[in-house]
């Protein structure tokens, strides 16, 4: 595979360091439920998860379901911007035990002062280890990847159950940090049915990644319960918990307990 960036390598190492069972990647929408909550939330998640995913709210999140649409809209209403997020992260990441992956649709990234050219340096300065861009397929990733890798920041590629084998092979070769294996066709926020076909697809992605010495494989979309996490043990290297975590915040619940519960441990 391609040589991972320093940031991508840090993320991969954190995922592989998980003891028993898959690593947890905990997602938060930056600025939800409030701007002031970000620091505490990241700290609470870092205590229970191997990797933190920080979502940049976008007005038109094409790959997201109702929950993340809601949290994004709420964050935008409070004036959350990518600039603010990077500024906050610069102060927070040195104290966090888990690496931070930034999730953003392409358009906010294009609007950073200096455009894509400066993206990598800005992310590196904020302590961001890797970036996920859900509307950036392999065919369009080059300028973003070039900017990030020049600054030692990884770019995560996504694969889906309907990706042709050739596309999966290309994705696992270039994905830097982890390969994001979407569990189902659809948007975020549902509940993934993890039948034999899905597990077979996920195992196939991991086999493809291992075959080229690629980054670990992390399953996301629709992960809500400890039963799902158990079913994925040994199949993938990690799981992403996003909408379930946002909904816990909406209920005023304890995200640390939610993450511990997913791991199957008592609270």
């Amino acid at each position, binding site marked *: 595979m391609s040589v991972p960036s320093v940031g991508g390598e840090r993320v991969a190492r954190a995922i592989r360091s998980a003891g028993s069972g898959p690593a947890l990647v905990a997602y938060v929408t930056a600025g939800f439920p409030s701007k002031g909550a970000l620091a505490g939330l990241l700290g609470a998640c870092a205590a229970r998860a191997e990797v933190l995913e920080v979502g940049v709210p976008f007005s038109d999140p094409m790959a997201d379901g109702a929950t993340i649409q809601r949290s994004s809209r709420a964050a935008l209403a409070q004036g959350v911007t*990518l600039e603010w997020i990077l500024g906050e992260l610069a102060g927070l990441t040195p104290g966090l035990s888990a690496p931070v992956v930034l999730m953003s649709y392409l*358009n906010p990234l294009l609007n950073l002062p200096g455009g*894509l050219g400066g993206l990598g340096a800005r992310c590196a300065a904020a302590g961001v280890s890797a970036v996920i861009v859900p509307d950036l397929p392999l065919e*369009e990733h080059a300028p973003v990847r070039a900017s990030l890798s020049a600054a030692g920041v990884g770019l995560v590629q996504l694969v889906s159950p309907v990706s*042709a084998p050739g596309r999966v092979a290309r994705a696992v*070769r*270039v994905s830097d940090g982890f390969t994001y294996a979407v569990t189902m066709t659809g948007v975020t926020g549902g509940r993934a049915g993890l039948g034999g076909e899905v597990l077979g697809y996920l195992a196939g992605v991991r086999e493809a990644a291992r075959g080229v010495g690629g980054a670990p494989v992390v399953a996301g979309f629709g992960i809500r319960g400890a039963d799902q996490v158990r079913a994925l043990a040994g199949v993938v290297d990690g799981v992403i918990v996003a909408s379930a975590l946002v909904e816990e915040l909406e209920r005023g619940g304890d995200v640390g307990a939610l993450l511990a519960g997913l791991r199957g441990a008592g609270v």
Partner: protein
Amino acid sequence: MSAAAGVERGGLGAGGGGVAAMLGGALPPCADPAGELGKLLSGAYPDAGGRFGPFGGRFVPETLMGAMERLERAFAEAMADAAFVQSVAAQGRAWIGRPTPVMVAENLSRAWSGGGGGRVVLKREDLAHTGAHKINNALGQALLARRLGVERVIAETGAGQHGVATAAACARLGLPCRVYMGAVDVARQAPNVQRMRWLGAEVVAVQSGDRTLRAAVDEAFREWVRDPERTHYILGSAIGAHPFPLIVRTFQSVIGREARSQALELLGRLPEAAVACVGGGSNAIGFFHGFLGDGQVELLGAEAGGVGVGVGQHAATIAFGRPGVLHGCHSMLLQDAHGQVQDTRSICAGLDYPGVGPEHAFLSWIGRARYEPVQDAEALGALEDCCRLEGILPALEPSHALALARRWLGRNPSGTVLVNLCGRGDKDMPILMRAMEARAPDGHGADGHGAGAGGGGPVGAGGGTVGVGGAASAGGGQR
């Protein structure tokens, strides 16, 4: 990096001819407009990456990539299949009523050219089956959907015209159809919602986002992501990821082909200007394509100027936007400094969209077409003139084009302007009734631009003359 990754990087960065560098940076002026136009005319654009110069591309979730690639292949194969092309044309004649006529609007010509002898010529797409040009693309894509072997069709709609057209085409071809429509538009275009339901389509009122066309497109894409293998998404505008802008333009180009030869037959020459309204830009791109190679024909797009030039007051994307990525393509976009898409406003649902087709962004960039905002009141004034002087009730969308034609005649009183009258206005009756009720007792609209044409002379040339002055000053002020 591995060799494979290196090739990918070089492919877009170097081979893309500087396109990658433009992504996210300021858009430099076009260095070679003639050369760029030549690439479009020769078919080199859209290129293999779906780009028209710096615009276009395919920025969609990975889950849709397989469906997009299948669609691209199927479309290329279909267009190379004479039987398919003949079938589109034959159904166009028998079912849509093509060719739609071109006529000289003598009364509007007299009223709007101020005695200068200029002419307004109308391409009557409002006479197409279901009442608008949208049917050209809906029929073509429904036939394509059948070729793809999908089990069902989804579509978005703003004013409801594309939804009605898709519902009709799917009814004829026996395809189940679901239409996503913003809840705001469901309320303001009620007659079309009923028509879609009568034609057998399921109409989903979209409550997310801004609850207009943009939210409907968001939701249709989300639904396609849920079931990309068995569903075809009939996108109605010249927007979205490649190959949608190419497909929509191809099926709408019949407008421009017909209009050019009809104008030559009727006038003995080409018009000096061709005007169409632009939201996403499907009627305009099909219309403009008939004249792209005729350098003497000025191409003008009328964008929705809404109620003003401030943020959220309009939907004039090319006039006030910057390059950005929305709904799968890199194009001009109404967005804030941080890349968040802005809310829009227009009296007509069909133009109420913060993006624009990438080929329009390209035509503006190379200077081949020019785009001007037309405010609600000015469009209403043109609509009123068209009703009273020509006995034609145009939709609010092409009323923006009519208003821009009036402006153009104000600048060129002896010229000939061809307007694509892309739809009829029956669907707009609820909005028109409200606009009439809201009108001040002196007969003038809220800000007086043209809408009050009836104030001085309720019927006939007097109404039109008032409109000319209003239009000319509004035009100067906005640009």
